[in-house]
């Protein structure tokens, strides 16, 4: 019998390898998370409409299923000091009805770097490098302002793929208050952060037409990869 890697595994490995080659360390975190890490320390207070964007599964004990891998930014820095370069592959959850383009569980790849001279220019460069490694050297990209409470300035990146502009990841410079929440002095250090949904990227790259397929276990799907 011929074995098969799950396509999510292959995509994540490939992505991790690209960043590992640029000096990034891999860190992981729990999928059940405290609200403090998932929201509050990332400047997403209960009272802010930004919290609605990430509709959340709650456990009966008040904890949440993490809605993104960003809480690991805070967790990782509890035991580290800058300069750091870190990526975080992991599973996340959103409380939303599923259909061909929405899934209640998905994988994210988070990355961040903190140093004295890390600039938005470096962020733009590194994302460009990554996208080229995944989609090919000739891929066209564009960036534009976006809003995430934990970065400032905030930025989205889109690629031109098969005739269309597709937004594929969110990013920005880590917000000074988030740096403070990490125990990092924003007067001395600055950094970037980015996060991307692996399932959607896999959809774009392979042309699969339903984002739920990777978790449904149809062998005909899995044996293709």
């Amino acid at each position, binding site marked *: *019998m011929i074995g098969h890697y799950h396509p999510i595994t292959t995509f994540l490995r490939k992505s991790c390898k690209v960043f590992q080659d640029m000096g990034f360390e*891999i860190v992981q975190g729990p999928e059940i998370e405290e609200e403090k890490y998932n929201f509050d320390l990332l400047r997403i207070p209960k009272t802010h409409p*930004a919290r609605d964007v990430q509709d959340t599964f709650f456990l*009966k004990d008040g904890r949440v299923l993490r809605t993104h891998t960003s809480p690991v930014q805070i967790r990782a820095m509890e035991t580290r000091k800058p300069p750091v370069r870190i990526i975080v592959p992991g599973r996340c959850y959103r409380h939303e009805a599923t259909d061909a383009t929405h899934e209640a569980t998905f994988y994210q790849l988070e990355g961040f770097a903190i140093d004295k001279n890390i600039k938005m220019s470096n962020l733009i460069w590194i994302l460009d490098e990554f996208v080229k490694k995944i989609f090919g050297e000739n891929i066209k990209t564009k960036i*534009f302002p976006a*809003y995430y409470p934990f970065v400032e300035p*905030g930025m989205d990146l889109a690629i031109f793929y098969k005739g269309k502009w597709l937004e594929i990841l969110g990013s920005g410079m880590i917000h000074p208050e988030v740096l403070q929440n990490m125990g990092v002095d924003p007067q001395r250090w600055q950094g970037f952060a980015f996060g991307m949904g692996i399932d959607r990227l896999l959809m774009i790259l392979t042309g699969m037409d339903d984002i739920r397929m990777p978790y449904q276990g149809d*062998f005909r799907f899995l044996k293709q990869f």
Partner: protein
Amino acid sequence: MIISTNHLKKIVDLPPQEKLVEILTSAGLNVEGIKDDVLDLEITPNRGDCLSILGVAREIGAKTGQKIKFAIPSVSTNPINKPLKLEISSQKLCPSYIYRLIDNVKIGPSPEWLVKKLKAFDFRPVNNIVDITNLVMLELGQPMHAFDYDKVLGQIMKVRPTQKGEKITTLDGKDHNLPEGAIIIEDKQRIIDLAGIMGGENSQVSQDTKTIILQAAVFDPITIRQTAKALNFQTDASYRYERGVDILIAKPSLDWAASTIGKILPDVKIGEIQSIALPYKKRIIEFSCDKINHLLGTKYSPLEINKALQQYGFEINKNQAEVPFWRLFDIYFWQDLAEEVGRFYGYNQIPKIQLAAQDKKALPKDYRLLQVLTDLMVENGFMELIGYPLVSAKQVDAKQALALSNSLSPETEYLRTDLLASLLQQMSRNPWAKNIAVFEIGHIFKSNSEEVQFLAIADNNDVLDKTIGVIKNLWKVENINIKVGKLDRNLLDLYKIKRGNLFCFILDQQILNQLTQKDIKWDLKTMQLNPYRPVSKFPPATFDISFVVKNNISQDSLQEVIEKVDDKIFIVELFDTFQSEKFGKDKKSVAYHIILQDLKKSLTDGEANQIMDKARQTLISQFQAQIRM
């Protein structure tokens, strides 16, 4: 938010549509859709100031160097001899309450031009007064409300938080049991307004209204949000209040509304503006051009930086920037100013600068272990699955399971307590599969722990025994206790899995902890992903084919030829190859699993047999194969 360019271009000159879309996108107002002259803009939660024609026009004006052509006509007022007392219990909840009376109104349908404007925003016309309040909100961003003066009992309006057990019927006829602390307006006897969300039925304007109280207030965004969430009741007003309505737009809004009412109903008497409002507090942010450039990675001159900020309405005084009054909900730090500079010149102008190279860091131990294990399983012929961690009550160990408090359905109410739940669920989708050798690595959740588990299932216990042998050998852990078990019939019945013999072994966190570090070499070239081919929603047919051919014929060419026999041949996978003297010298036996599917229907046995016959014939004629099966 939808917005008509016809409406927009009355106050700001618009470039051609393609350029306009580019300007809006580069400003962070993403254009999600265009239909004729209507744009659908995605306004992020921080940009409440852009939830109006004026707000969007300001952004375009800043980028194109234009002043907004929006002049509010002066309104001539008259004394109206009708008393009204206003009381505000907390200026935190209501920092500004501004209103005016308008007398001699005549409620009726709106004129055609007004109806047309509202319809461009997908707003349903109601009557002339309500329509004007809606139009002003859409144009200037100030939610407004009109009360019927004669329905406000005792000529008093008290703005206060609710106590427990209070109720209101809003003007859409819905009853609400109000949460404690919601902001309401009360007259002498009754609650007449769910402030910032919707007016009360008992004070709304109607056919015989003669005098209105026109309100342009600001309410606490947090309280409005909490109330709207608690009642699950969001309106266009609450949406704007949650995101912040600037305090200085109220007076122009009242003038704009009054002058428009005066245009439609020339006999009205317009009263003076009245207000109870906290003074406006300006916000000043210190910044340095060096810091802004250092954050962005740019080399803008102080002149360029100042120009960008000024275009967005900031007042610059040396190294201090006064935030424009409509941006107070969004701009607090000098980093926010850096974003404005970046936005103004366009993010795409920021140079790409290589991140200095750094030494490669080793993969962490836990992560690497799971990667090595994954490689090992795949090399030994297993297929990796990833299932849903959310399962039903039946699928978990009830004593240890964690439940969600807001699950989407009973089928996904619990977090899996072992991987069997999700792995069997996936296997049940493939009753047609001939051989099973699958594994999953994932998190499992119990009341007192979250840990990683590894599970392998196969229909052949020798395969599992052999794999355990490989694991033990690789990590040199002969004494470790890993056992193959047979899956229980009752368990399989739960997943409607009919096949009889299924075996598994589990590596729990404790066992995984005993496996030491192994190196792993990652090669990008081996991490290719094929383009996806659609899977039919009809069940496939499967076949095995085995034959003897010359040794020098490659697997690849055999596989390719079989794949091309018919487009219903979907997957061809090698499962066995060996040489034996009985086939003769330079010969080998090869065996393939073949999966057939039709995208439009189930394949009949007859059709499937025909295709397989054709495959055999092709192998015979092209490779002189001797068919064994």
